[in-house]
């Protein structure tokens, strides 16, 4: 029996934050996010922004891989599409007033990403599992290749990359990282909230049903075609949004930023955090971004700033990244979310036995 878990109506029983500890945790996190810019230094803001951008994309992958059970190893490409669409469209729609531009460009970029998502998702209707993983991987290689082509260089900048615009929301120019933090945080929280909501309704449940047993979902009237493609569209759209923010956040984007490494980072963050759980991506993104930074800092201390030794940093980061992923797969396949669940559960039962 969990303490204080007596419900008097269906409405109360359907709440997500159904006990005090969960409420305190979530509201505390939100408060911390709101107050963060008041005490954080530039470095902390930079890290927080990076996490927010990556988080939106990982939530997208979570919808597809975590909830619908369709594995993709190519979602970096959708982030690329979102980022490049934002830049290209901003340069095309110069007739629009600057303050309105993001409200047109970002939805368009997200929509383009979602459309490409549907096209890439088409093989998912015929193949499952690793065939799909390879199909998405192949699609992402093709997307990255096209971005790099000389043919499209007038729009994309080709291999040398392209400068990005500064977002202007109705006259408010977000030209500092601290202002971007506000935008990124709001969108990241909304993405999480939207996803949580999605999985309280028939649409989200249908995704999970397909993951758990597809023929049984069909027998309940769930069209595999419709819902698989919908899942692809949603996840690509989130990745596209993440890409749009990526473009706004950095002064310049390069094709190499969206290659295989990014796709793997997305999947790794999801597995480390916990697949198919709302908070999984949050934990995962935190680990995936904070650990390499810790390595960089500690390598810096250990070598005393010796530049000769600095070049070992990147390979060590890479190895540790792989090891974290492998460690979680072997020891805690359900991710950090499983660990926090255990802690919350025993907190609820306190002072009674854990279990």
């Amino acid at each position, binding site marked *: 029996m969990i303490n204080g878990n007596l419900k008097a109506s269906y409405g109360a029983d359907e709440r997500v934050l159904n006990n005090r500890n969960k409420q305190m945790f979530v509201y505390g996190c939100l408060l911390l996010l709101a107050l963060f810019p008041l005490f954080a230094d530039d470095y902390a803001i930079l890290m927080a922004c990076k996490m927010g951008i990556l988080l939106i994309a990982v939530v997208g992958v979570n919808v597809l891989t975590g909830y619908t059970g369709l594995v993709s190893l190519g979602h970096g490409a959708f982030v690329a599409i979102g980022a490049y669409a934002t830049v290209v469209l901003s340069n095309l729609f110069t007739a629009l007033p600057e303050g309105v531009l993001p409200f047109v460009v970002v939805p368009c970029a997200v929509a383009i990403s979602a459309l490409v998502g549907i096209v890439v998702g088409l*093989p998912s209707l*015929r193949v499952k599992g690793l065939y799909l993983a*390879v199909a998405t991987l192949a699609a992402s*290689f093709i997307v990255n290749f096209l971005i790099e*082509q000389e043919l499209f260089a007038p729009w994309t900048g080709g291999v040398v990359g392209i400068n990005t615009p500064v977002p202007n929301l109705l006259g408010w120019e977000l030209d500092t990282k601290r202002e971007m933090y506000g935008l990124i945080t709001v969108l990241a929280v909304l993405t999480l909230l939207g996803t949580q909501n999605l999985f309280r309704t028939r649409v989200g449940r249908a995704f999970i049903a397909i993951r758990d047993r597809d023929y049984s979902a069909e027998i309940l009237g769930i069209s595999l075609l419709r819902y698989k493609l919908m899942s692809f569209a949603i996840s690509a759209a989130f990745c596209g949004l993440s890409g749009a923010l990526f473009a706004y956040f950095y002064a310049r984007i390069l094709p190499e930023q969206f290659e295989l490494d990014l796709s793997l980072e997305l*999947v790794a963050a999801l*597995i480390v955090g916990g697949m198919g759980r709302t908070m999984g991506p949050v934990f995962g993104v935190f680990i995936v971004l904070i650990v390499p930074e810790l390595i960089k800092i500690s390598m810096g201390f250990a070598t005393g700033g010796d530049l000769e030794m600095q070049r070992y940093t990147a*390979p060590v980061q890479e190895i540790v990244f792989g090891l974290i992923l492998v460690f979680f797969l072997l020891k805690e396949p359900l991710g950090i979310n499983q660990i926090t669940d255990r802690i919350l559960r025993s907190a609820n039962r306190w002072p009674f036995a854990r279990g």
Partner: protein
Amino acid sequence: MGQFVQFAINGLMSGAIYALIAVGIVSVYKATKVVNFAHGYLIMFGAYFYFTFAVVIPGFEGAPAWLASWQPAWMVEMRAGLSMFSPLGAVLDWVANLPRIVFGLLGAVVCNALLGLLIERSLMRPLMGQSVFAMIMVTVGLISILSGAASLIWTADAAFVPHIAPNTPLRFELFGTMIFLFGADIVNMVIALLIFGGIVAMVKFTKGGVAIRATAEDQSTAYSMGISVPKVFSRAWILASATGAVAGAILATRNGISPSLGLFGFSVLAIVLMGGLDSYVGVLIAAMSVGILEAMTQWKMGGEWAEIVPYVAVLVVIIFRPHGLFGQKEVERI
């Protein structure tokens, strides 16, 4: 027409190497139901091992001089009378390199096999019988581990590595055009096809091969019939990494050594899926077709576009034949 033949032959030669790489992926899949996403990085290790044993170690001060370059008296004599680019000269160059080529190949095969065994024992074995998804994701994690480890170990710029066979240029006329080939490429192709054929024969006709096929059919039944499934697992990994070492050595002589060799594995993965994961014949045909398609793309559209040929091809094949050209559709019981 002559151009066409030239490019088709080039395509067949790279196709054979794709097939050699693919055989590693297929063998591991047959035995363990795991698709090794990091196979390209195993191959990269093979290439670096070959470089280490064929170039770095012979270059050490303590290493015997004949290991770096074998110059017996009769060879010096023969060489004296030769002109600069004579075919015999190329053969003599090869003979002089022979000790370090053999040393390099042996070292690469042994070290890579040990690496494969290590990966299987420490990362795959604990997940055996649990989750195929987790095992596949472990190989995804391996990509980062192997690629980081390679750039940590081999920091020096990789220099030229010796060709496996005498690299005599060959010219002959076919359909009225000159065809131009390198001797080493032909030998590489022959080696690749021989190893491919050898492995297929082994799986078909030997006792160990039967064990692999039985395990592929049904792991738990094979286990209960007295086949040591763990042994099949480690053998498959050793086989994959040993063939990968040869492939890596060949690739090192063709394309040079760099961390980007790992990416090669993904195009081969695409080829394997095209052919149908569990069919050696299908994979051979897919490898050859992609090799030729790539060469044709190179001819008509330029070298860059050849890069994405395998990916476009696999997407097209998957949409029309979801389980590859020769793959078996798994029937799901309801």
